[in-house]
């Protein structure tokens, strides 16, 4: 990908995305289809003659798609009739009926198998939500599962072993990945998902599921090694996953810059940039970018809860109120809207009301990651550590990449003085964001509480290395060294403390500021 790719690249990409839209919406994968359409509109304007050229050469670029896309849609006439009815039922949210319509024919074409099983999966999800009843109620939790997952996994596996053709269907592999992820077998899901995107890269849903499987930054290279290295979709995946892993590093920004030359008007990329800025604690930049998105696309509620988080952190009450009004004017019953309103109440210190709105968001969508974490924060404010712990846990069930939830759990357990627990969660948070000083301070604090000064010193030293010497850390270190009777070091840090108070703060021992957060 150069600085400015040639026009034929755009033509190809546009054609592939258009085709992807049709394939995805034909399979009832509407979120992915929406994303694809957004991406298509994010491309630069094509000149008319380019459009004519597109008419003449219909062959899609062979290097990115390994399979014959037309073969994906092959069905016998009777199958396609059943498929139409099933899809119509699915679109009217009659999932069981949709699945049943394809029961008979599902042994033949991959497309029918896909919709049959996908409808069963969605139906299972819907039923699980219904059976879970109230948020954080007695039935809400791991004991209530989607009962279709295991049968779908077994059925797909038997299809894969019996007819090798199904093994090369990207959508069946994608579905296999979805159910495995839902069944908490992320490790096993990587292979089929990677294969799915390799066979057909323009299915954004598969990339998202794959991103779900990457639970720490160490795993990202391992996953990337299985993917087509230079493909534009791989780059998008890399940026999105890094963003979710709080990696606001130079290289991510470089990739993002490259992508923005390909998709100059793609809102999704702008939001990724805003999120990266947010993680890097550059709130003003982040707010500016989000603001731009709101102006461009005022009814786009996706990710707007993130914007409300930025406004919350920067305490821009008026703007947050405005955003809340805007969102509820568009759709009151979207989880994002509820999160924005909840954030607003939280900022006004009306934590009970905030909790009500977070619950509403979660009733609308139990996989709303932000709502679980933030509800945990609210419960902490309300001094309800138990409920907070449960909320954070649920957040981690949705995505184990959420460092805030890990950190929140650590805090909650610290409050109820269960330091071993607390320690474990801080440790996980620190593993996700090793350059966040707070995590190390929290860890050190735990060691201190557990009467293990040597380890506490190590952790404080690590915290110190991540930022300018902070007086409180130095103070702690001095105390700890005195405690273990190491007077020499105690004095060394006492000198450092004195220096920093004077204002000539030295960088910590072996600081790696070039790798550190951008703040």
């Amino acid at each position, binding site marked *: 990908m150069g600085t400015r790719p040639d026009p034929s690249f755009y033509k190809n990409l546009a054609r592939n995305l258009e085709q992807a839209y049709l394939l995805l919406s034909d399979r009832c994968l509407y979120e992915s289809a929406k994303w694809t359409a957004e991406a298509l509109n994010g491309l630069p304007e094509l000149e008319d003659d380019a459009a004519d050229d597109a008419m003449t050469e219909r062959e899609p670029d062979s290097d990115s798609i390994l399979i014959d896309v037309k073969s994906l849609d092959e069905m016998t006439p009777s199958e396609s009739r059943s498929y139409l009815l099933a899809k119509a039922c699915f679109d009217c949210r009659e999932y069981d009926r949709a699945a049943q319509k394809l029961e008979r024919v599902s042994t033949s074409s991959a497309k029918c198998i896909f919709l049959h099983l996908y409808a069963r999966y969605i139906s299972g999800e819907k039923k699980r939500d219904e059976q879970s009843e109230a948020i954080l109620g007695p039935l809400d939790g*791991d004991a209530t599962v989607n009962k279709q997952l295991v049968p779908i996994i077994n059925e797909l596996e038997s299809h894969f072993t019996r007819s090798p053709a199904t093994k090369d269907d990207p959508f069946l592999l994608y579905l296999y990945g979805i159910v495995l992820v839902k069944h908490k077998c992320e490790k096993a899901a990587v292979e089929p998902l990677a294969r799915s995107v390799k066979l057909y890269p323009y299915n954004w849903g598969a990339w998202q599921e794959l991103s779900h499987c990457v639970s720490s930054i160490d795993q990202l290279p391992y996953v990337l090694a299985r993917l087509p290295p230079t493909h534009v979709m791989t780059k998008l995946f890399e940026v999105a996953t890094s963003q979710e892993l709080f990696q606001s590093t130079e290289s991510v920004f470089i990739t993002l810059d490259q992508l923005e030359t390909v998709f100059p008007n793609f809102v999704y990329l702008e939001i990724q940039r805003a999120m990266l800025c947010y993680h890097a604690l550059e709130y003003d930049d982040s707010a500016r970018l989000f603001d731009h998105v709101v102006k461009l696309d005022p009814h786009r509620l996706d990710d707007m809860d993130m914007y409300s988080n930025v406004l919350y952190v920067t305490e821009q009450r008026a703007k947050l109120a405005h955003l809340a009004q805007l969102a509820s004017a568009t759709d009151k019953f979207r989880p994002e809207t509820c999160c924005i309103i909840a954030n607003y109440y939280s900022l006004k210190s009306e934590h009970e009301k905030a909790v009500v709105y977070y619950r509403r968001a979660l009733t609308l969508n139990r996989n709303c990651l932000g709502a679980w974490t933030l509800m945990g924060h609210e419960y902490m404010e309300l001094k309800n550590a138990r409920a907070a712990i449960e909320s954070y*846990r649920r957040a981690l069930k949705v995505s184990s990449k959420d460092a805030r939830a890990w950190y929140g759990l650590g805090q909650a357990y610290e409050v109820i003085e269960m330091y*071993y*627990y607390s320690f474990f969660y801080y440790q996980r948070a620190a593993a996700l964001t090793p350059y966040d000083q707070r995590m190390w301070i929290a860890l050190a604090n735990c060691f201190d509480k557990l009467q293990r000064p040597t380890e506490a010193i190590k952790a404080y030293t690590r915290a110190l290395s991540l930022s300018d010497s902070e007086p409180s850390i130095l103070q702690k270190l001095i105390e700890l060294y005195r405690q273990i009777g190491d007077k020499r070091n105690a004095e060394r840090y006492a000198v450092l403390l004195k220096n920093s108070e004077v204002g000539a703060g030295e960088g910590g021992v072996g600081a790696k500021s070039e790798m550190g957060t951008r703040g």
Partner: protein
Amino acid sequence: MPAPRRAPSAYSTPVPPSRQQLSQRSRLDSASSAANPDLPSISVSSNSSHASSLLSISPIVRAITVPPSPFLASSTPVPPTTKNAYPFGFGSDMDATSTPVYNSAERDTTASAQAELSQADRLRLWRHDALMQHQNQTAVFVGDTVLALTDDPNDAFWLAQVHYNTGHYARARQLLMRQDLNRSSSCRYLAALCLTRLSKWDEALATVGESNPFRNASEEAEVVSDGGIKLEASMCYLRGIIYSNQNNFEKAKECYMEALTVDVKCFEAFDELITNSLMSPAEEWKFLESLKFEDIPDGDLVKLLYSTKLNKYYNTARFFEAEHQLQTVYQLSESSDLLQSRAELFFVQCRFNKCMDLCEKVLKNDRFKFSIIPLYLACLHELEQKNKLFLLAHEMTENHPEEPVTWLTVGVYYLSIHKIAEARRFFSKASMMNPHFGAAWIGFAHTFAVEGEHEQAVSAYSTAARLFQGTHLPSMFLGMQHLQLHNFTLAEEYLDASYNICQTDPLLLNEMGVVLYHKNQLEEALEFFFKALKVAEDLDSDTKAWVPIKINLGHAFRQLRRWPEALQNFEEVLRISKHEPEVYSALGLVNLHLNRTDKAVMNFQEALSLAPNDPVAWDLLKRALEENSQAMLNF
């Protein structure tokens, strides 16, 4: 139009008789009637047109008239053929009553012929018509008159038949007592049948005799290949019924086997042997091989049909072969018995959904096919189809409250909605109605097992084990109960007994492995688990069948400190089955041993989120967390 009520059960094969069979029958009728000129069926040879109205034989039958065979003529003095006295039968009319023709037009044509008959014969015809149309009062009335007129033992026999069909067993018996029983085995048979109906087992046994008197003379009888069931076989079968009701199962089994050896067409005996599992799977196959199917017409077909009914744990290849042949050569793919056999196989393979579909297909045509209902119930219970169970139970109780299987249905429904007390009541009701109803006994025992009342469960399973000596299930359940009571020696004994009957049930092999595991004989346990997996694979079982085996395999590997294999098994289990807290705990233990404390902590937390009250998991979590903080020493 009154169809023969019990005809299907009395007449084994649901397939329509082939042309050859029909012609065989007709020959027999004509022959036998010739031997007994005073019986209605005489008219087949003498006046075929009238007989058609009475006996409703299809045209081809009428066309053929065969001279009476000398052998038959000299055989029994009393009613037509041996098979006439078959339990629940209608006498000679059974031959071709599948499509009775009561054609008034034909009657008119025979009016002149009727004039030639004697008064007694006309009355006999009346009696027979009445019997065929289930007008039993008429038949009794006319029968009494005929008997008074002639005082013929044959008429007494037929009157007894009428009484039997009316359900007046004592009356029939009393009538037959008047006759000299030794003169005719048919009379003796019917009398014994009445006695069994009256539950007078000892008297019945005295009537039929304790053993087969014709045993040594049977070569002679084999000459007859008449299409009907030999009376000798029926007698043997009846003897078996009596012995089994006297709880003498060894003798009963012998009698049934003898019945089949005498005449393979005695399906009731075969059915008793198979449904009550009086033989072990291997014995069943051996016995089937020893039977002389070549003696009867269509022997190949019957053999194939029988072989599909045998135990499904054994010789699956042969089953497939038989099924294939029946489907291709005989075009019987829609036969309900074949479908049922296929469904049984699916059940053994734990493919419950497929099994349910097939059962429903069968029940669609025959809503109350009692023989398949226990299987269907097991399927529905397995799949937690409470709603279907509810509807089925209601339909059954409305239409067939007299059948024990109806109350089994009700019991299963209550079991599946966890109303154990009610379930127990209905299982016990079913087993009271038929004390030899194994499914009811096992259900009854299950209700105790579910509530953890092991002692009572053990005694109920023991009863079941006594009733079904050829099936390994009751002994296996007994073994499982003792395993839960930690009586490992007893458990092993029962499981070994079960293993002697059936070597190819993965569940059993798994249980045996578990016993060895508890006795800390890990290598041997592993062997059994592997064997179980192998068998499950050979049966082509659904994943459901081998998930518990894999879990146990994982545990055994864990105890043997073969960590990677343990991990592999547990992870596979998590992928292919519903998540169980124990699996997570076990995985946590492995990870703890491998010093992956962070993973162990997550595993224990998963376990606790599924089962929050597990003290062991809490303990392990605490340990993992402590070890985890130690591991941080060198970061």
